[in-house]
């Protein structure tokens, strides 16, 4: 870029600080490391936390994939990818999971398993799972330090009392390495088990709230639940008890988006567009 913007936008001091925070986050799985999040040229809430991680970690040999809501072609994904391409000359971008070394995503973890040589960066609006029970950050810090999560568990208890069901739909509180409970970002419950013992490093970046945290490879991640009221993922069975399939690729194993088509019919379609395309390619040989 002409007007003297550094490779990967951020100045080198900023990148170094973010990398130090990442290392700390990996060393203390699930601990929210504060960092002085910089203003990025897109809105807070649009993935500036994830973007800062990506920009601090990226090198010219990297291949980047950006996903939003499972899709590489949604407005925000395109916007972020274009920005990365613009500020990081020499890097490659892809929509294929298998080709990517660095994957930035909002609201989804890809359907297919990640490899040890990949890093997944998730964008986070609310980094702290305790915020629903305690507004003060100062107090939450102490609660995390002491692994004092009883008030969060009471929330689950009250849910079951009221609704006979844990009503948390996404951002499902998940305990990392038997201590810290994280907000795993607004991924569906369907994706939470993928955090557990993942081969890839999973990083979480909250730009507006200025926190970085990590689920390192092969680290246990347990969604909160009671012994007799287990954690449950989204249910995609129809009224006949059959698993719904993607309208496009026919997969019965993926997280589905539901919408009403032009004819007024309710249809289901893979949320992960890259996975869906790969399934279709396989089917057509």
């Amino acid at each position, binding site marked *: 870029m002409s007007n003297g913007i550094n490779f990967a936008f951020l100045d080198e001091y900023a990148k170094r600080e973010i990398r130090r925070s990442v290392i700390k986050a990996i060393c203390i799985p699930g601990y929210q490391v504060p960092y002085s999040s*910089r203003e990025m040229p897109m809105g*807070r809430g649009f993935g500036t936390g994830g973007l800062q991680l990506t920009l601090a970690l990226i090198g010219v040999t990297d291949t980047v994939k950006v996903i939003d*809501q*499972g899709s590489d*072609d949604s407005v925000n994904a395109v916007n972020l990818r274009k920005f990365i391409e613009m500020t990081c000359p020499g890097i490659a971008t892809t929509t294929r999971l298998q080709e990517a070394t660095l994957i930035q995503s909002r*609201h989804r973890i890809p359907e297919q398993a990640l490899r040890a040589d990949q890093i997944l960066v998730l964008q986070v609006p609310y980094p702290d799972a305790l915020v629903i029970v305690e507004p003060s950050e100062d107090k939450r810090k102490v609660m995390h330090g002491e692994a004092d999560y009883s008030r969060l568990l009471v929330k689950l208890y009250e849910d079951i009392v009221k609704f006979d069901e844990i009503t948390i739909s996404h951002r499902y509180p998940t305990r990392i390495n038997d201590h810290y409970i994280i907000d795993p970002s607004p991924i569906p419950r369907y994706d939470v088990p993928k955090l557990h013992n993942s081969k890839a490093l999973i990083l979480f970046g909250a730009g507006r709230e200025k926190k970085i945290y990590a689920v390192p490879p092969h680290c246990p991640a347990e969604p909160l639940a009671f012994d007799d009221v287990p954690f449950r993922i989204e249910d995609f069975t129809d009224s006949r008890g059959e698993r719904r399939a993607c309208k496009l690729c026919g997969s019965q194993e993926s997280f589905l988006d*539901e919408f009403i088509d032009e004819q007024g019919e309710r249809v289901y379609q893979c949320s992960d567009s890259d996975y869906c395309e790969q399934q279709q390619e396989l089917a057509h040989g």
Partner: protein
Amino acid sequence: MGYVAIKGGGRAIDGAADALELLRTRQGESGQPLDLETIEKQLYFLHSRILSEGGLYHPKLAALAIKQSLGDTLEASFALRAYRSTKPRLLETPVHDTTHMRLIRRISASFKDIPGGQMLGPTTDYALRLLRMELLNESQEQFQSVAKTLFTNLPIQAVPDSFPKVLDSLRAEGLLPKVNQAAREQPFDITREPLIFPVPRSAALATMARGETGSLLAIAYTNMRGYGDVHPTVAELRVGYLPVLLPHPITGELTEVGEVLMTECEVVAMYQDDDNKGLPTFTLGYGACFGHNEVKAISMAILDRALQKGMKDGAENPSEDPEFVLLHVDGIDSMGFASHYKMPHYVTFQSDMDRLRTTQQKQEASHE
């Protein structure tokens, strides 16, 4: 122009950029582009606001930000802030003493006469808010002749280089707490360190200095109206140019490298007991920001006083709670988050529907 947010995003974004550019140029072929100096000089207060909320003293780029954002203060400050992110920090100034400001305006509400005198300067405080119809069709000649007349008739007084500060006399009388020297030496840099509560006062001041004017005003107003106990008196409000000193790269000697327009406000509020067995003194609130932004500086000073109380005795209301105030006054953070709700949230909404349906099914089953 319909779009499905999940597909064809690239084309849609390009289209949106074009549409916005069309909006900027829709005066058509007869239109004149806004001149940056005109923005800086004639949209003086708007420009001041961007300097302060953008957190970067760069008058030309601030004017550019206003131009490209079509006058949206949040967007303009945002662009300035994002530009700042790309710049490494090379040098630090020492703590500056604002006594040496070249003033264009200074007033005190606490004393009729102050050393150096009151100086009303450019203010709308006592202006009648009547629409000036004569400006409806102001011609270039008229504009220029006004300026010429004012400049020619300006009495060149011996305006002193600097004025003593009102607070100095109060302090000399022992009515104010002593200056905390330690706090002066290590100001907190919010651009390099995250706020981890509890934070020092300097972090609070820095956060508010680039805070969003409306947000600061709203929270300060809650405190003035009764959700708080600050009954401030403006000891001094000053607007002017502060010479900026930097160590000379070779000699290390402090050298003036330029000046920044800034607004500073000091309020004095109800007295309190001294913690160290001394006599009770007034309490102080301090506000300062780039540009000419009087409401912001006053709001900040009131909040500074409220936060000091909250940090010391515990917050009794939102305006005394450092987390509440400091985490909610940044315009870039808050506007970004408000905007992000416009982004697609299909996946989370799918999960929400799943929970609601399951719960409904369970409750139906239990009612049968």
